[in-house]
């Protein structure tokens, strides 16, 4: 087990390194991205641009620039070109909003997905299943930004049921915090509820045909015990691992659109701005932030799988 974890951590480091190099190279290759020219202003002459270049260290060879930037990220000193603010600080400030959004949405989506998936599987082929299936498909098909805009329009503008977005820190007022996040949570969760309930339904239908479910019934367990302790339990393993991956992705940047529409001051919003202004330092930092979480959760998921499935943990067919 220790060897397994060590291996994954090593892999994680390698992946993060590769990502940072690729982002850096891409950024330096795309046109219209000469920061010195932009910072120096519209009517700058070459001499001015050259001075800005030297000031920001942009005339040094690429590998040196890369190393400098990496060092700055890890020591929290990275400054953005455009706004001259500390990038790492900005990200840090955006974390509470992003985490609030993602964790809340995750709790919502998992609870609903398990409920819907379970009911769908148990009543497979009948009305409840068909209704839930249609709901899932609708949820999967709706683009996030469209849904967000629709919800805001109808439930916030037309009928002033919910606030129009913006983030209230938890420490300030838990009630308001939750109130402002209800629509964003729902928006972000809808897509995932659709996918996860379908996955769970499919896994459960497969599990119901397994021999061990037949044994459980033959033992005289109640139908409910059979369904929950045997069918659901075994069907949840792939769902949980899938969750780990999706959660990592959502935190790492999948929430950009939601944050933007609802004007939540999170990392996603910050990333959106950086992309629009093609500002390398914040972009790099945000990508590293995102990549870190995705890779981290990938690793967690692999370890979790071993925890949940004893066959993986203890090795196949080891006769006692």
């Amino acid at each position, binding site marked *: 087990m220790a060897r397994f974890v060590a291996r994954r951590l090593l892999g994680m480091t390698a992946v993060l390194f590769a990502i940072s190099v690729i982002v850096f190279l891409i950024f330096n290759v795309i046109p219209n991205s000469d920061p010195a020219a932009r910072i120096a202003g519209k009517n700058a002459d070459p001499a001015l641009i050259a001075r800005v270049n030297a000031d920001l260290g942009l005339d040094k060879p690429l590998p040196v620039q890369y190393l400098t930037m990496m060092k700055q990220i890890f020591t929290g000193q990275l400054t953005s070109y455009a706004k001259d603010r500390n990038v790492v600080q900005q990200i840090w400030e955006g974390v509470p909003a992003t985490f609030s959004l993602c964790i809340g949405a995750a709790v919502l989506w998992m609870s609903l997905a398990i409920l819907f998936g379970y009911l769908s599987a148990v009543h497979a*082929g009948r009305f409840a299943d068909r209704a839930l299936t249609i709901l899932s498909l609708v949820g999967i098909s709706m683009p996030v930004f469209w849904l967000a805009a629709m919800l805001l329009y109808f439930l916030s503008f037309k009928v002033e049921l919910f606030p129009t977005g913006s983030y209230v820190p938890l420490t300030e007022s838990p009630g308001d915090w939750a109130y402002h996040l209800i629509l964003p949570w729902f928006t972000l969760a809808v897509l995932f509820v659709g996918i996860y309930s379908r996955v769970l339904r499919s896994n459960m239908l497969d599990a119901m045909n*397994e*021999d*061990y479910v*037949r*044994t*459980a*019934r*033959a*033992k*005289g*367990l*109640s*139908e409910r*015990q059979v369904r929950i*302790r*045997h069918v659901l*339990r*075994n069907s949840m*393993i792939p769902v949980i691992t899938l969750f780990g991956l999706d959660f990592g992705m959502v935190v790492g940047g999948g929430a950009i659109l939601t944050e933007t529409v609802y004007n939540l001051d999170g990392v996603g919003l910050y990333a959106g701005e950086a992309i629009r202004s093609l500002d390398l330092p914040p972009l790099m930092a945000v990508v590293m932030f995102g990549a870190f979480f995705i890779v981290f959760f990938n690793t967690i998921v692999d370890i979790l799988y071993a925890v*949940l*499935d*004893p*066959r993986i943990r*203890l090795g*196949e*067919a*080891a*006769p*006692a």
Partner: protein
Amino acid sequence: MSAIMTVEDLRVSFATEDGVVKAVDGVSFELAAGEVLAIVGESGCGKSVTAQTLTGLTRASNARITGSVNYRGREINGLTDNQLRDVRGEQIAMVFQDPMCALNPVYRVGDQITEMIRAHRDVSKKEAKAKAIELLRSVGIPNADRRVRLYPHEFSGGMRQRVMIAMALALEPDVLIADEPTTALDVTIQAQILQLIDRLNRERDLAVIIITHDLGVVAEIADRVLVMYAGQVVEDATLDEIFYEPKHPYTWGLLGSLARLDQPRTTRLTQISGAPPSLLAPPAGCRFAPRCSHVFDKCTELPPLEARTGGTHLDRCWLDPDIKAHRGSERVAHHG
């Protein structure tokens, strides 16, 4: 000995795209207390479906089940799952063919046994666990107190099957239904498991219904034998009667086609030509007629399962009893 289970005209059919498959087409038999009944036949004859249907485990939505399964005076065919809870496990327990698939891989073996105990009895976790350890010991698993915490995949095939048997016996049922319990096991391990089942049958007066395709296994532990073919019982007799006085051509064919270990090489195995009929549209008369070398004109009519030679030996064949006696003993003499 009186019968504890009586099955009458059990029929199980499955509605498929190609038509209605009559998997079990009128099976009747009795099981006496403490008796070992073997149901033997080849793949597709309906023996496994029969076994599962006895405790209502055939639950496919396209299945139609009719007939009577009477257990200790109570009709259990057609009951709901919740109504069957006090029969399953408590009175009639089952052991299946592949213990790797039949045990839930994510729960410890001990937990799977205690789950069963606590579903039927009001005992504490500690008591249930102690009982689980005792059960594992009783089926010959060494270091039971340690192994109770292991997962199914950590056991070898034979040990897993012992675990399944231990679990089946947890509530001291009267009947054990074993569906091909040794088919997936090596022959030396099979011998161990059969020895175990035999011991349990004798020590606890446990009635056993064992489903198998292996006539050697039948010879080893059965008291009575049902031979099934194409969804029906074609012969129902005691162990000796089946092997030494068989009265159905299919049984003759089965016995004749065996390559026996205790015989030197004969020139040729007696084979049954052709293949079993489709269960979608079985032949109108005797189902074995197309492959039978003794077929005659009466065989276009389906023979009922009857005792044609007195006693309790039932068969489903129109042949004259004298011919049967002659053919039957001819078979036995051929193999000395």
